[in-house]
């Protein structure tokens, strides 16, 4: 398959059919968790509509100059909008700039493609400014929005797009693809497939950045240890962790993934575990706390992450979390 994706074959087929039958929508919304392949799918779509030598209608060759420029996200007719660090928001000025560009006819390709990444990060006025463009874009413009879920977007945006929801790739399929397409050892591939919870982008990132894998193990170790510690130890940990807000934001979802496994284990579900290397701990915790506590801890961790996103004092949020975590 020349869309060359891990999983999401149905989405690629659907989009390829839209191109082949010339039924392209003016705007697509691709949702799913981070690292699942939303951006990759969007780029393939941009390649497929603008490919110079498509092997078949709706298929990108991934070899021509246009395809290669899009792959590097450096194509004259590809506009990319995302929050620009240090800001964590998409601003209205970025949307205005985009509108100026989209009003012009394409520079060299068939279509101008605008990629708006993580659109849940758009400020309200920025999202509203886009509505007019979403409603009546110029004739040779395709807008592709990505977001974590439609619930995090204004309904006015969602209703103006064709929605494609990407689901996690089955663990076995992801493991196979990692082996065949990225030449990763079967053992490592299987582990990565589990840890990434079916998110190919995340799995590949972990593979390329060994530090993150080690970091994950440290964090999980810390967590298990903290569950057995008293308040003094926990507060000391909260103080250190709160110093680096970014790592705190990365740490909480990993702890939550462990509790998700605990919850799954407690119910006896056959869904594959994420933290497969932590089987023993998960079983202990499931026996000790049961489903109810596991669910409440997940909520607690998610809530803490939200608070930090909303600029609550990180140390305070971490300390409250430490008080509320159950004791092993």
């Amino acid at each position: 398959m020349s869309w060359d994706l891990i999983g999401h074959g149905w989405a690629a087929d659907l989009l390829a059919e839209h191109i082949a039958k010339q039924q392209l929508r003016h705007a697509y919304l691709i949702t799913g968790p981070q690292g699942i392949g939303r951006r990759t799918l969007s780029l393939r779509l941009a390649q497929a509509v603008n490919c110079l030598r498509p092997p078949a209608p709706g298929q990108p060759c991934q070899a021509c100059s246009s395809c290669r420029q899009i792959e590097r996200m450096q194509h004259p007719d590809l506009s990319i909008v995302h929050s620009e660090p240090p800001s964590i928001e998409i601003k209205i000025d970025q949307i205005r700039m985009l509108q100026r560009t989209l009003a012009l006819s394409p520079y060299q390709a068939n279509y101008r493609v605008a990629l708006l990444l993580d659109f849940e990060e758009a400020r309200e006025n920025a999202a509203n400014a886009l509505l007019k463009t979403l409603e009546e874009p110029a004739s040779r413009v395709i807008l592709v929005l990505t977001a974590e879920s439609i619930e995090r977007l204004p309904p006015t945006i969602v209703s103006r797009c064709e929605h494609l929801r990407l689901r996690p790739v089955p663990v076995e399929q992801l493991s196979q693809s990692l082996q065949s397409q990225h030449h990763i050892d079967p053992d490592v591939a299987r582990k990565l497939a589990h840890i990434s919870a079916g998110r190919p982008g995340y799995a590949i990132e972990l593979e390329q950045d060994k530090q993150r894998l080690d970091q994950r193990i440290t964090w999980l170790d810390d967590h298990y240890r903290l569950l057995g510690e008293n308040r003094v130890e926990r507060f000391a940990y909260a103080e250190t962790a709160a110093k680096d807000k970014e790592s705190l934001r990365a740490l909480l979802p990993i702890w939550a993934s462990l509790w998700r496994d605990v919850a799954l284990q407690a119910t006896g579900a056959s869904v594959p575990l994420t933290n497969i290397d932590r089987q023993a701990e998960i079983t202990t915790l499931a026996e000790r706390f049961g489903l109810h506590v596991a669910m409440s801890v997940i909520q607690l961790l998610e809530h803490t992450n939200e608070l930090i996103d909303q600029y609550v004092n990180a140390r305070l949020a971490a300390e409250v979390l430490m008080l509320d975590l159950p004791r092993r």
Partner: protein
Amino acid sequence: MKVTVLQENLAHGLSIVSRAVSPRSTLPVLANVLMATDEGRLRLSATNLELGITCWIGAKIEEDGSTTVPARTFTDLVSTLSDREVGMSLNVRTQTLNVRCGASNTDLKCIDAQEFPPMPAVDTSDGLQIKVSELKEMIQQVVFAASTDDARPILTGVLMTVKGGKVTLAAADGFRLSVRKADLASTSGHSISAVIPARALSELARIASDGEQLVTMVMPRGRGQVVFRTKDVELVSQLIDGTFPDYEQIIPTKFKTRAVLSTSAFLKACRQAEIFAREGSHIARINILATGELQPGSVEISGQSEETGSNQNIVEATIEGPNILIAFNVRFLREVLDVIRTPNVALETSTDTAPGMLRPVGAQVADGEFLHVIMPMHLGS
């Protein structure tokens, strides 16, 4: 690539093309200027993907080639070079450009010319031709009326239509409309209708040299671009996609009151009224009074502000039709009077809620060559 050029030519060329450089873009190569040998001359090009400018300068070429140089660094460097002759040679493998001028020796890190977005190679043989001076005047007469609000992108452009040896430029922003027609220097069989970004036309008016030169205009098929070419400079602009509103409908076909007055006196009165009106709602009240059969009429232009005071000016005028009091945005009036070249101007109105029309008056202007429509404002109390 190995070339020698005169410092002043290079500096001049860079100053022309650098307006199209976009330093903050996702494509790093757009912050560079393409430099390529081209049939015995050196070609300099820059583009921001909306507007591209190319300039050819004379050069002594020892070896053909091309590369892209960082615009800012190179321009700053060239402007400080003191010797007349600048020698440049490119190391293709490392993409390093060595620039020698007198005792100065510089190595510049460049980006491969392959990375530069292709500029259209156009065949100008079947292009439309128009005098540079005339095109510049046309642009100046319409471009200010284009909208600057990106929410309606189509109105940020100027509609160019070519039909039967005549070219028309029209721009509107929802409150005013400016239309200018002219004859082409060459007659053309095919008719054209395209919306060109106002920014690109302003830039064209800026870089086009004066005089009786001809500019050739081409629209390569299916590329959504327009190309303007003079002897040494070429400007390429992307067109705006969409349909321009049918502006003919807005042009009033009849009027009740017509006042003919001196352009310069009217402009001066508007300038004074604006000093006060700009503090508030930009309203200038125009009171047109026909006094009697054998006496000249008058037009009173007034502007006022709560804080700074008020101003009135009376300009003599020849009036046909009944008296009328009407209000216009004074900035709009001033901007159009600024571009009317004839000594007298006609203001045609019908009621205080209907659009007014301004047009130049004089023997040397053909009928309907230039007209400007402005929506009136509420008179208030």
